[in-house]
């Protein structure tokens, strides 16, 4: 009984089909992906899909200040009369930017360091790990806070601060994975036939170490946004006129008790965004982790 080999039987197709099959079994994952797509869409097309795009810049319209949600203003208006719905959408733009920038930097620094530490071991490993331990000794928000304050309040500086404070996590994750992969038989086999160390590093170790990184990074997209919002809330992150969700919330602190919408909607935006990325990360973990699969 000869096996017919066609384009749909080749391994890549099989993997993709299996991936889709697993995704379908995981509705939360799909919801998360859907929301993320929506978010990116909103971010990209913000100026064209919002009713009052000028409210994202310098507009001040005291006449319409602090109006509750209505058909004119879905999320109401803030103390300067700006449409909150519009600003939330523009905030999505900023959030995506934050997430991508921070992760790009953190991964660019963290992954290579983790690879080197895990693969070569010895002295280099010790130094890198000690440095990482120092960074990780700061409880959550503290290091980004101090660094952001040092650099001066701005959203760009906040992004740098978070990236610098976070890359050690990725060093740790990559290193742990590399340590396991390094011991796998296929690596030993490659070594035994004389493949160069760098070749092994890039062709075998790196691709197989990426799974936990991808999972963590997708969840961190959400957590970066959360942290940046926190920094803006305190005042060392985004400053006016930047449109950022955390900044919107802190601006509203003076009157939120009587005007609930000024705080609720930006916060809801953060919540939904982080939730979506968490669902995506969780779903990816279920799909990529062979132990959890059926």
């Amino acid at each position, binding site marked *: 009984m000869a096996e017919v080999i066609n384009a749909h039987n080749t391994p890549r197709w099989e993997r993709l089909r299996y991936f889709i099959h697993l995704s379908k079994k995981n509705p939360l994952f799909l919801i998360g992906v859907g929301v993320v797509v929506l978010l990116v869409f909103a971010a990209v097309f913000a100026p064209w899909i919002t009713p009052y795009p000028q409210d994202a810049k310098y507009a001040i319209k005291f006449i319409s200040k602090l109006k509750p949600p209505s058909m004119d203003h879905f999320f109401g208006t803030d103390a300067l009369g700006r449409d909150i719905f519009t600003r939330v959408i523009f905030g999505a733009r900023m959030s995506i930017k934050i997430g991508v920038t921070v992760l790009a930097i953190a991964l660019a620094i963290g992954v290579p360091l983790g690879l080197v530490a895990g693969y070569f071991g010895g002295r280099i490993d010790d130094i890198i790990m000690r440095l990482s331990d120092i960074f990780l000794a700061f409880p959550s928000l503290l290091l980004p806070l*101090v660094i952001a304050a040092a650099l001066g309040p701005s959203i760009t500086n906040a992004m740098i601060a978070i990236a610098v404070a976070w890359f050690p996590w990725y060093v740790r994750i990559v290193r742990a994975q590399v340590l396991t992969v390094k011991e796998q038989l296929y690596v030993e086999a490659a070594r035994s036939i004389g493949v160069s160390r760098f070749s092994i590093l890039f062709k075998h170790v790196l691709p197989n170490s990426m799974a936990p990184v991808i999972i963590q990074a997708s969840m961190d997209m959400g957590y970066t946004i959360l942290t940046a919002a926190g920094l803006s809330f305190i005042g060392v992150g985004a400053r006016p006129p930047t449109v950022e969700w955390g900044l919107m919330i802190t601006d509203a602190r003076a009157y939120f008790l009587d005007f609930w919408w000024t705080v609720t909607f930006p916060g809801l935006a953060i919540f939904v965004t982080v939730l979506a990325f968490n669902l995506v990360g969780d779903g990816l973990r279920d799909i990529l982790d062979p132990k959890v699969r059926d």
Partner: protein
Amino acid sequence: MKKYIGKRLAFTLLVLFGVCTITFFVSRVIPGDPASMWAGPKHTQEQLEAARRELGLDRPLLVQYLDYMGNLLMGDLGVSIRTKQPVLEEVGRRYAATFELVTVSILIALVIGVPMGVISAVRKDKAIDHASRAFSISGVAMPVFWLGLILQMTLHGNLGWFPLQGRIGSMVLIDHPINDITGFYLFDSLITGNWPAFFSSIKYMALPALTMSFASLAIVTRITRSSMLEVMREDYVQTATAYGVSRRTILYKYALKNALIPTITIIGLAYGLMLGGSVLVESIFDWPGLGSYIVLSITRNDFPGIVGSTLVFATTYLTINLIVDLIYFFVDPRIKHPGSKG
């Protein structure tokens, strides 16, 4: 074992040293001139120069650093530029407030989270499981400062059940002052029988603690649930069933003890989250703790204050982690009595 503790302590000190160094240099870079703050408003140029000399700002940075570290080894955290008080004293006073809040929050997370996780695992895929999983997933996604504001809005603004800010009712503090034994209002008022102060403290702590514990509660529930599920699949659970042990005993005696081991690790993580979160929570609730202190220090370029409080935060975090690792050591017999395969 002693060797292990010794090694960990040495390691911790090394890390703390690194923390100090980084924080010192970073905080010295903060834009703004500490000298002008020290000299006070409306200072003359001479006063500014004098302030600069007094603070040692005219010397090379490296010298300043060595000076600071030297003082640190003798237990001197310097003087706050903002308040002109010794940092050690101020930090000490505020630390109790933060520590009390964080500990109560951890307790909330454990006391509610563990049972919820267990019930969720035992009644897997039923309504309560779905509800608790939904809660777990959303709990970590919620911005802590937003949650605080929402709670203030609803439970204070709309329902009036809880006060808006502060650690205790100001009238209560005047009429029924608390004996300062540990600095923990709840504990001190309890053991001195100071009921008005005790109940007032609880009322004021409710919203901040709820806000702070929310994310950790979600994590604890989740970890307990998955840990329970994993343990329930283990061979020894099957053995117990095969010997006629009742399901109840299997779950709450045999499985639970195993399942709780990973939860212990989470405690360390939760502490870290909460210590960092204290910065946000204390701002919202005007809680007179270390979190709000560090925010004040940052906004006023008070680098002794910044370094001092960061140091205390980091020390707490590292110590908690050390303690957690030691607890682990005692709880898991596989670590305590390494087997020799005879």
